């Protein structure tokens, strides 16, 4: 019954997330060379043809590479801004969030620069909500300190799904998602399988089941199950 509750909540949350206004989300990859956070952020972007403003600081570019257009599904134009300092990245993101023609703003910041504090994230979040443009801040080698981001995710790669034709080959990517702080929905942990061809994310409960919750076994739920 625990997994049933989980599935129901996930289903509700999926619909709810789509209806929620776009805002600032932070993603913390568990290791800097892990591209899962970028993949997850891209999969959550709205399905439009509006251009994406992608701002990177120098260390992110050097340590974790640049986004490769050939690996990104969809035909979205990307406007790359290569900067050196984190304060410039924040400035460019804030400026980009004033432009409603953009589909999304993605920023990559390395470490914990002094400019990236609660005030900076709050400015980003308020601007993103005012312009209704989704904004992702991907923070590598960073500690999840005080931040005004509405959703904060910890994301790591997991061994991929079995390949349908080749048992030796890695299949569809799997990520472990940990929504450890959120203002809008209840935090939780999921295992996501990304279907690149359909650009869809399949969420599942983590393999370890949770403890049975006291509300389980109510009359309505039994009828529904």
């Amino acid at each position, binding site marked *: 019954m625990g997994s049933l509750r989980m599935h129901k909540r996930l289903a509700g949350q999926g619909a709810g997330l789509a209806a929620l206004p776009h805002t600032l989300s932070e993603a913390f990859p568990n*290791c800097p*060379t*892990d*591209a*899962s956070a*970028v*993949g*997850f952020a*891209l999969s959550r972007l709205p399905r439009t043809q509006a*251009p994406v*403003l992608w701002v990177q600081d120098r260390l992110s*570019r*050097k340590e*974790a*590479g*640049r*986004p*490769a*257009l*050939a*690996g*990104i599904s969809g035909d979205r*134009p*990307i*406007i*790359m*801004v*290569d*900067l050196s300092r984190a304060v*410039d990245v924040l*400035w*460019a993101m804030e*400026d*980009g969030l*004033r*432009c*409603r*023609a*953009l589909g999304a703003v993605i920023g990559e910041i390395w470490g914990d620069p002094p400019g990236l504090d609660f005030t900076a994230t709050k400015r980003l979040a308020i601007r993103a909500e005012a312009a209704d443009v989704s904004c992702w801040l991907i923070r590598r080698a960073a500690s999840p300190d005080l931040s005004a981001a509405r959703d904060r995710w910890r994301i*790591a*790669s*997991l*061994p*991929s799904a079995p*390949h349908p034709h*080749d048992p*030796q*080959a*890695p299949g569809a*990517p*799997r*990520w472990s998602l940990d929504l450890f702080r959120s203002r809008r929905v209840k935090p939780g942990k999921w295992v996501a399988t*990304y279907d*690149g061809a359909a650009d869809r994310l399949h969420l599942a409960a983590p393999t370890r089941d949770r403890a049975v919750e006291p509300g389980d076994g109510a009359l309505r739920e039994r009828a529904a199950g």
Partner: protein
Amino acid sequence: MERCGNAPPDDVPVVLAREGHHGPVIHAANRAARIDGIHPGSRVVDMRAICPELQVEYADVAGDHAALDRLVLWARRWCPWTARDGDDGLILDTTGADHLWGGEAAMLVEMETQLSLLGLTARLAVASTWGAAWALARFGSVRSICGPGEAHFKLGPLPVSGLRLDPKTQLVLRRLGLKTIGAVMDVPRLSLTRRFVKAELAANPLMRLDQALGKLAEPVSSMDAKPVIRAQARLAEPIFDPTPHLPGLCEDLCDQLKHAGLGCRRLHLTVYKTDGDVSYVDVATSAPNRDPAHLHSLFRDKVERINPGFGFDLITLAAGAIEEMQDKQTRLDGGSDDDLHLTRLIDRLSAKFGPRAVTRPVLRQSHVPERAEAQIAALANRPDEVVVLTKERPLRLLDHPEELRVLYAVPEGPPARFVWRRQTHRVARYTGPERIAPEWWKDRPGTRLRDYFKVEDQTGRRLWLYREGLHEDGRGGDPRWFVHGMFA
């Protein structure tokens, strides 16, 4: 249009060549080469057989056109109405302007002097019609002047090529025995009309003749120079900071632009210092613009770069790269225009961080991963290149592939265990190889091929590795392994 600085000596036959259907053909020849029997339009190899010491240079046709267009504007010193005539001529409407230079003959001498000071050889003629001037300049005597009633006599002895006809018609006329313009004039009009009734202008000797004799009008349409739009502030006392004057200058400039229906893509701010020095700041926009507030904001961090010295007393703001710009209303309720916001965002970002920091990646047709992507300007049009992606590609690419240290190599496939960035990875699953051969038409000889593998390590990280080269491929020692990208 060869400048005198690198002109070859007159006695050496030199030709300019351009690409033809069957190899290079001669575009132009100098006097020595023409004397040796070399004529434009023939193939370079044939002419080399005639004249073995021939020197061949490639012609820059587009550069010649651009230079001629600049020369058109330069020639307005003599008269206000000038135009380019074909690939190698200028036409100047000097009606009412010759007396300023002391008559037509003196004007021609003056023109020839000035053009020779530029390093150009010119053949000049004055006539009452475009066609007559064309023929006299090319086939007439030096600096010939043809009055209003003299065209009939002056043109008569000239060859029939002076009628601006296409080569085919010239051949027809030569075969008919009509070798001079006078011979064509003597043919009855009715016969010529009947023979060339359906011919185009360029193939119709009668119409060309009428144009040369002034019976058929041929107006000269002069091209307009771009207007110079500039605002300036003259100051009573030298100052050190132009910032307080910028909003006024921007508004003045934008008023002028709006009045002319134009927008600018470049702004040049120049300050003239009291010690005679000049310093300037340039900003650029990604789309034509004439909004004073926006143009002013582009100067925000740049004005500090001006070195004021002992102060300056004149500031000018000039608009460059002027383009037509119409006012657009995209929404009936007069709301904001989304596109405009995007162009302004790009302007702000490029003004602050430099135009090279703001780019847009586009796909290119290449198998080599680092060449499969090109950077273009953020709002440039996408090139019409259809790129079909067949293989799975990583989400992130490293700018420079990083070499890894193999701990445990296996005969086939990627290494079973390797160290990258001081971490040991054990390959759990892999797919590949995908062999990407070097592009021999671009790469240096000796570039090794690459075998790409997508590997997944024990923690689930998916990397894109490649082995550079093969064992015993004769292009270096043992193959090395690199990490090139990360899959999601």
